């Protein structure tokens, strides 16, 4: 721990929560369901794209459902599905508010 802050200077984050977020790209919209398909955004090096933003930029909860193929990988569990799956549906049917926001 180092006393780094210059205490008499104005500290702009005294009233601001920050959050680290990882980015998903919208890759397409499935025609049969009209649901967006998402994929994690990655750097050219394969590393996930993360950013720090103020919490106040968050607008809504987004429910993601892994995009299961013909058969589901039996190693998946509820604990790891969001980590191991590659593509997700942005679930517009999560609730009525989500539905109306996403189908405008």
């Amino acid at each position: 721990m180092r006393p780094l802050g210059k205490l008499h200077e104005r500290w702009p984050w005294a009233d601001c929560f920050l959050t680290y977020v990882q980015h998903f790209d919208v890759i397409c919209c499935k025609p049969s369901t009209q649901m967006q398909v998402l994929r994690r955004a990655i750097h050219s090096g394969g590393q996930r794209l993360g950013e720090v933003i103020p919490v106040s930029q968050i607008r809504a909860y987004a429910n993601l459902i892994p995009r299961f193929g013909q058969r589901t990988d039996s190693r998946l569990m509820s604990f790891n599905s969001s980590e191991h799956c590659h593509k997700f549906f942005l679930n517009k049917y999560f609730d009525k508010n989500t539905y109306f926001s996403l189908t405008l």
Partner: protein
Amino acid sequence: MKGVLEDHLIHQCLDIVLEPLKRAAQVGVMLSNPLGHNRYCFTPIASYIIDTPEATMLAIIGGKTSPVTMAMYKQFGDPFQHEPCTSLTTLAQLVAVASKADPSNLEAYFCEAQKFHLNSVHIPFWRNIPMSCPSRFLTPEMLHYFHKEFWDHNCKWCINELGPEEIDFRFLVLQPVTGFHHFKEGISSLKQVTGQTHRDVQQSIIGVIAGSAPCNVVIAVCALMDFRYRVQAYHITEKDLKLISSALHEFHLHKHSILDTGLHCGTANKPIDNWYIPKLELMQSVVPSIPRVGVTIQWSADVTEHAHIDQIKDPVRGSNNHNYDPQICRQLDHLEKCRGFKLAMSLKDPELGLDTSTGAMDGEPGDEENDPSVISRCVTDYFACSLRLASSTPDTVPLPRRTFSASCIAFNLAYDPHIRHISVDNATKQFGLLDLRAALANFLSYERSHSVDSVHPIGGGPRKAAENTELPFEDIQVWFKLCLQTTEIHTHSILPAQTLLASLPEGDWKYGCYDSVVVNVDGTKIWPASGLQGLLSIILFCISTIFIPCLIRTLNCTTPPHYAALGQAA
């Protein structure tokens, strides 16, 4: 014949009970409006909220025929609305039946009535109420028309398509959402489910089947789901009505694929090749009903269905399981007397009256106990909290403010952080976020070059900051939970808050547990009006940590160090 007599009895009872309303509907009555002005009012029946079998009984229609249209069971799957079954038609049919058989001769009258698909009640209670036609006042009802239809049919198609094991496994694999049911045991073997469970399954079933079921089946199921969601809106415009009709039309265009693939099964899992589903026919009457009597969601059976719990189930728990009826009646009678006594006391003693009113103000739980029709739990209003906090001077509230709002969303965090302080490097390791320091440096450099309130963009080329950049602070506080509260998109009423998780890897959660959010990265776009417009304005994220940097003094650590630092800074 017993059933016939029962129907007769109900219509006779309604006749007696509704007598004052009938008179008011015929000649009018003076009623005072909320402003206290007297108005000359008429009381035709606008809506009778009821289950399908009871609806047919009220419309005095026999089985296997629609209560609101002339369609009989073979026409239930037709993609259009049949001619409405009006009160005039039915009354004319009654005259025709009466001319052939005497109503007092039950059996002969029953046989004759059946020829017209009537149930042999000869004096329907609605016969002399002006402007009250069963085809209009039997309004569509959410629970029975939509949620049960989904559960009995759509859900079964999906289970048959994927197979019970596969669909159960998929529901198991979904990441649990705080406040919502997680189907650990799957959905295929559920018995005796409530309307809430129907909705919980509706939430994710499309996403679950979308990848693997045949395209046309997905389109058909999806179209009905769209129909269901759109009809539940609180505001419906002409344009919405068109969308609702087109969703239903879409289903009828693709429904053949469900029969073709043999997904529509009856008992013993034998495929059925017809659409004799009464609820499917009833869906046709939803769109015409909305311009006549208003949005469907207001005619919800929730209150009447819930009355069964208040009026029957709860009193039964207090009984000794003998003589149910008298015991229930006695308990309801006692409760009624207690309520009357309380009310009288509060009127007599102003202090007591004051007590109850302030009690109700605090969190309004008292209100709910008194009023059985209020089912929903009371919702904390974070918008009001944030306004209160924002208007108070910074010295009088602990900073940072734990409740704050931005455009149409309010946030709430616990007063105490889950990790009081942790160094940035430690956080990097524990959360497994290798680029945390670089992301922070990036954030700071953007903050320096733009105003503090500007919206932070995302991406935008390679990151300039390196992994080992010096930061103006070393420690952060971390929160694992964040409550989001939004308002209903049409009525702007406050919705219950949704808790989001962003917690450390722990136990079974080897990778941590992170929820996803929609983030605004373009100040010119306003959610939700913008939708996911342009796909660049709003991007989706999974939140990995929620934190606040804290300044820490190593010396004079008598008070919690970060508060001292923050207090001075402010």
